[in-house]
């Protein structure tokens, strides 16, 4: 009898497991079929953006893309970003991750097609904070709806729809639908990118079950594999086409017969009624270069906010380093046996919340504050946070703590916030650096790791420091790098200095394989980043610099430069028409600075 009960329970358990698995099985190797869009999947031509619902910013960015960019050291190991990966010329593999105890499906792994391995979480978890790093594969969650695996993906790096520069921004999200029809698999992919698309882009890719395939057969790419493919070009060169350079586009148009207007893409070109326009070429605007319309604006696309504004958010970055966001400028926190080290202290408006957040990380005193520059949103919290902490050592006869944390910054910061006796300083005495280091660097050792401060002259300000935690492998950049706006050119700063600072960051960062992770970067404002994100930003700033420089060389006035809109394809992501740092102010500052360099 007992045996029968055991057998019955066993059988019932198996049946129950069968019910849990009642979704369609996608496991296995699936070979891509290439009966659609073949020229868009192999050697796609520059200038061919047919069928893409690009907005003006999108096609302008695409037209400036130079294939040589792919050969720069920072881009050689970039894999297929998830917004494109399923179009790659290879097999994909679905694998199940089953919980060994409950037997429940936890996730699917999706490998292949030159994209990064993806985990599609099926356990109902939330997507990460908007401050979390972005990756080439993004962060994906899935559910089953009827016969289809529905996947939602966020946290995608700046990427592309086609390998000819047709762009996607890091604010793009995806919805994917994987449906099996016998031994065929249909992947319907939507990319929604309010920065570069007029409407969500839909693309369907087809696969056939292919058991002998191996989706991981192409090896690896990392820093060791990077070679000098652009010999002779100066370090930091960003290949791109200036506005009006159209030879690369003309070549495609001549060979394909596609009208220039249609080649630029756009939502209207993807609907049947556009065929009537194609039949009447006089209705088409086939100019090869369209000057940006003066006065037309691209409103800033706000990134998603997943948490309450005004609240302090704490995110682990790497090693001993955390990000505290919400106090003004970002605060980097290093925690260890020795105590707490802060890089910047926020605006000071929410010191109590900052202190409360620090206590959730460690019950240790603040020993040091390092300021990246002299702006109040980064050192406004100095006075109170330093006063709440204490430092040790200092050559005193006893080892009793010394009241107040050390405040370290470049000497230019001390000069900026202090004032001779009798004069009104920019900040109260308690906020001043206790040490303003001269020269180009300073070394610290705290919480068991070496910390390097690198001064970058005349960048965001005249007193910028990069702070590199060597063991944790994290850089806090201050406002030389931000993910939220164009670089702010402050007192003593310059656009070329910012670019030099960004290149300095790239000298320090070393990515892991496939140009992802490795050294992590805490920007002055915005989300956690890595080298690839800094590369995108550096490229953007360099391209804008090159355009303005070219316009100055041609003798254009500031008003003419503003009318030519040298930032046009980046405005929806980084620009602003109001507030303390507008797009106009950025262009003006760049123009003035570059004009002095003529």
């Amino acid at each position: 009898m007992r045996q029968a009960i055991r057998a019955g329970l066993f059988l019932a358990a198996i049946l129950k497991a069968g019910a849990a698995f009642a979704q369609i099985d996608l496991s296995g190797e699936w070979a891509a079929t290439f009966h659609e869009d073949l020229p868009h999947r192999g050697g796609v031509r520059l200038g061919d953006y047919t069928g893409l619902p690009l907005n003006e910013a999108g096609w302008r960015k695409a037209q400036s893309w130079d294939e040589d960019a792919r050969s720069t050291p920072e881009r050689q190991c970039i894999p297929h970003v998830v917004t494109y990966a399923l179009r790659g010329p290879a097999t994909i593999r679905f694998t199940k991750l089953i919980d060994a105890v409950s037997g429940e499906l936890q996730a699917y792994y999706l490998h292949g097609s030159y994209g990064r391995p993806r985990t599609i979480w099926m356990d109902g978890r939330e997507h990460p904070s908007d401050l979390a790093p972005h990756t080439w594969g993004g962060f994906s969650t899935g559910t089953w709806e009827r016969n289809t695996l529905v996947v939602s993906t966020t946290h995608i790096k700046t990427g592309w729809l086609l390998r000819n520069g047709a762009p996607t921004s890091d604010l793009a999200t995806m919805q994917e639908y994987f449906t099996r029809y016998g031994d065929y698999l249909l992947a319907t992919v939507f990319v929604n990118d309010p920065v570069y698309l007029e409407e969500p882009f839909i693309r369907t890719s087809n696969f056939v079950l292919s058991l002998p395939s191996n989706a991981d057969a192409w090896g690896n790419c990392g820093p060791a594999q990077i070679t000098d493919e652009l010999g002779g070009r100066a370090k930091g060169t960003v290949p791109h086409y200036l506005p009006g350079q159209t030879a690369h586009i003309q070549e495609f148009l001549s060979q394909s017969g596609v009208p220039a207007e249609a080649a630029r893409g756009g939502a209207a070109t993807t609907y049947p009624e556009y065929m009537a326009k194609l039949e009447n070429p006089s209705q088409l605007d086939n100019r090869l270069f369209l000057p940006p319309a003066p006065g037309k604006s691209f409103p800033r696309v706000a990134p998603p906010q997943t948490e309450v504004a005004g609240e302090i958010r704490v995110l682990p970055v790497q090693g001993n380093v955390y990000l505290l966001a919400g106090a003004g400028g970002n605060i980097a926190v290093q925690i260890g046996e020795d105590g707490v080290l802060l890089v910047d202290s926020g605006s000071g408006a929410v010191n109590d919340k900052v202190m409360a957040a620090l206590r959730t990380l460690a019950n240790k005193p603040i020993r040091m504050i390092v300021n990246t520059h002299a702006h109040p949103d980064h050192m406004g919290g100095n006075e109170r946070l330093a006063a709440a902490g204490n430092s040790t050592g200092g050559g005193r006869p006893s080892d009793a703590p010394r009241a107040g944390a050390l405040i370290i910054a470049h000497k230019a910061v001390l000069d900026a916030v202090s004032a001779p006796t009798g004069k009104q300083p920019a900040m109260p005495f308690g906020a001043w650096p206790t040490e303003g280091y001269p020269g180009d660097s300073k070394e610290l050792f705290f919480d068991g790791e070496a910390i390097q401060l690198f001064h970058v002259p005349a960048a965001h300000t005249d007193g910028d420091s990069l702070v590199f935690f060597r063991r944790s492998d994290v850089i806090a950049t201050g406002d030389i790098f931000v993910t939220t706006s164009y670089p702010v050119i402050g007192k003593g700063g310059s656009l070329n200095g910012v670019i030099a600072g960004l290149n300095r960051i790239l000298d320090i960062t070393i990515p892991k394989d496939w140009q992802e992770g490795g050294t992590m970067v805490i920007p002055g404002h915005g989300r956690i980043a890595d080298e690839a994100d800094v590369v995108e930003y550096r490229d953007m700033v360099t391209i804008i610099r090159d355009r303005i420089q070219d316009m100055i060389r041609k003798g254009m006035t500031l008003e003419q430069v503003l009318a030519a809109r040298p930032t046009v394809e980046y405005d929806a992501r980084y620009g602003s028409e109001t507030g303390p740092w507008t797009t106009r102010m950025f262009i003006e500052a760049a123009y003035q600075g570059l004009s002095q360099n003529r």
Partner: protein
Amino acid sequence: MGIAAAYLMWAMAAQAAPQAPPARQAPREAAPIDVTGNWVSVVTEDWRWRMLIPKRGDYSSVPLNPEGRKVADQWDPAKLASDGCKAYGAAAIMRVPGRLQIGWESDATLRIETDAGQQIRHLRFGKSAEAPAERTWQGRSVAEWDRIRAPGGLGVSLQQGPGRPGALKVVTTNLKAGYLRKNGVPYGEDTMVTEYFDRLSAYGTDWLTVFTIVEDPQYLNQPFITSTHFKREPDRSKWRPTPCEPGSAPAAASERPAK
């Protein structure tokens, strides 16, 4: 009956209950998805081969065999007007940019009307799918609601239920030979077209997807697989009927299916 056996029977009943086959229902009533409505193709793929008439010999992506390439290479663009409805047959019609109206003509027949080429397809379920007397551009389409069997645990014998509701599967034969693309890329009359019509919603919009497998022993060296997507439209206000044969009349309003 022992406890174990009773538990087993309960478990099996519980397993089977959600998947119990419905009583005999008309296909219309049994539809797991609603494919009816007004749909517009959004041409984000193969744009150059769908929105424009490709050049002779441009059969990029199509797995033609040597015979197929030979025929395609002989296409004469000067005679485009005389090609009539060759590029609007069932093997190609879903790739032609245009609008569809899909509705139930009867409880067992779905009707697809296209504005491009003004074609009408009848997707007939079950025994209503009788073969027409002669080959036509749209051929004979046999429809069924696809169901995905999901055996698990102990296997088929205990768990084979009606499966999960899937797509609308349509197999079309009895076709007149035609073109896969307007530049004379051929398919033969022995072609079989298998299609899966499916529905999804993304970013607040309803979509219809059509996964198409064209098998042609005459001109293709492997099944030609495409997938095409259509966005829902609220009405027929953008309907732009264009006959594929000069002088052919637009479909009369009375022929239009109910919404």
